[in-house]
């Protein structure tokens, strides 16, 4: 496996990109990280993801893979020997995939964005739903150290990048996620003790600055 060519086209605040960074780090795969300027997308990005023109794109030995949930499964299947992310039992895999899909729809989805991009009643409704979804995830975590059990698994990799965005959400929404979901925050901090996670997530202050910049660009108060 020594001469594999792995390139990641990414954008530093993207939680989708962070998932791929964490998965590659867990598998101890060396790769070339290429930062994309989304206002001026590179020819490589447009060639490798012509349909969506989005990051992250994983280029493995010249062949592109797109969509972050697809990436995590692909990385797990190509490099199965270290840090398996999905369990072997089909039913446990189905549970992991279900929660991965839930995270994508409910935490990373358009509705949750309203927590920072709106005000008043709309924002309050978005906050309420956001917290409800986090609580459901807390329920799934239960007393386990990680969603994957003793070690990081698929759901941990899929969800934890969002932790870097929590501070921005709290400031914009004027609430404390830790007060509402202490177990989930404890889980996130536990994940951050791992290099594969802490080195893949940007600093939360930088994310907050980025969100403020987005609000300015979109003319949001």
């Amino acid at each position, binding site marked *: 496996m020594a001469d594999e060519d792995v390139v990641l086209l990414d954008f530093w605040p993207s939680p989708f990109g962070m998932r791929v960074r964490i998965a590659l780090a867990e598998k101890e795969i060396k790769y070339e990280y290429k930062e994309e300027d989304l206002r001026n997308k590179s020819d490589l990005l447009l060639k490798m993801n012509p*349909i969506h023109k989005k990051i992250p794109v994983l280029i*493995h030995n010249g*062949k592109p*893979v*797109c*969509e972050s*949930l*697809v*990436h995590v*499964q*692909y990385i797990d*299947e*190509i490099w199965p020997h270290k840090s398996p992310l999905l369990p072997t039992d*089909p*039913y446990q*895999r*189905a549970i992991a*995939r*279900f929660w991965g*899909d*839930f995270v994508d729809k409910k935490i990373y989805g358009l509705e949750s964005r309203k927590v920072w991009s709106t005000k008043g009643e709309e924002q309050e409704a978005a906050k309420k739903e956001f917290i409800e979804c986090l609580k*459901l995830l807390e329920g799934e975590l239960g007393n386990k150290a990680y969603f994957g059990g003793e070690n990081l698994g698929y759901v941990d990799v899929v969800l934890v990048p969002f932790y870097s965005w929590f501070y921005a959400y709290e400031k914009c929404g004027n609430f404390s996620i830790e007060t509402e979901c202490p177990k989930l925050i404890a889980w996130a901090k536990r994940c951050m003790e791992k290099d594969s996670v802490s080195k893949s997530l940007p600093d939360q202050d930088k994310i907050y600055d980025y969100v403020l910049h987005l609000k300015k660009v979109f003319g949001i108060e």
Partner: protein
Amino acid sequence: MGEEVKLFGYWASPYSYRAELALKLKGVSYEYINEDIFGNKSDLLLKYNPVHKKVPVLLHNGKPIVESLVILEYIEETWKHNPYLPQDPYDKATARFWIKFIDEKCFPTLWLAAWSAENEREKVTNEACEYLKTLESALNGKKFFGGETIGMVDIVASSVGYFIRVTQEIMGINLLSADKFPQLFQWSEDFANCSIVKESLPPRDKLLPFVKGLIAKYQQDNAKA
């Protein structure tokens, strides 16, 4: 095998249909339970899918699996004969990419094009045509997305190839037409003509009035909004 397999579904749901087709392709015997999703969802459905409260739900030896794509992956991994996903990880990743494209872009936009108001329809229709063009490129001269035989992408694309075609008929629009998208149109014919597909698709004469009613309701709700 003494396996107990049950499927909670709805006869007109394209999502439900995927799960049924997958079980049939694997030759798995199952008990089908039709849920009254527009009226009264059963206690069992709410028990097995408390988060989304939707069909389909697959129950295997008492354990529930939920979300149509999760169900399809589960069926593939549990009953390994007649595989409908490629073995090679890269080809598998490609299949999963197309599945996501169909579910997140193609199908929702086509459905929107069917019932949106006149003034919005053109924009949505143009977008839908772009997606159909892209989807057609995935066929790349093959009979099915899965190659010589039906694969997981074909199973998921049934929502476009059959359900959307029925919807188009009602609305008198012809997006997925033989002259605009010859390869994709041919695929939808070949797919619907497979015996295993034919025997499990909801019949057109029942589906037509049902979708008509659904569209009327969507238009009504949208007019109120």
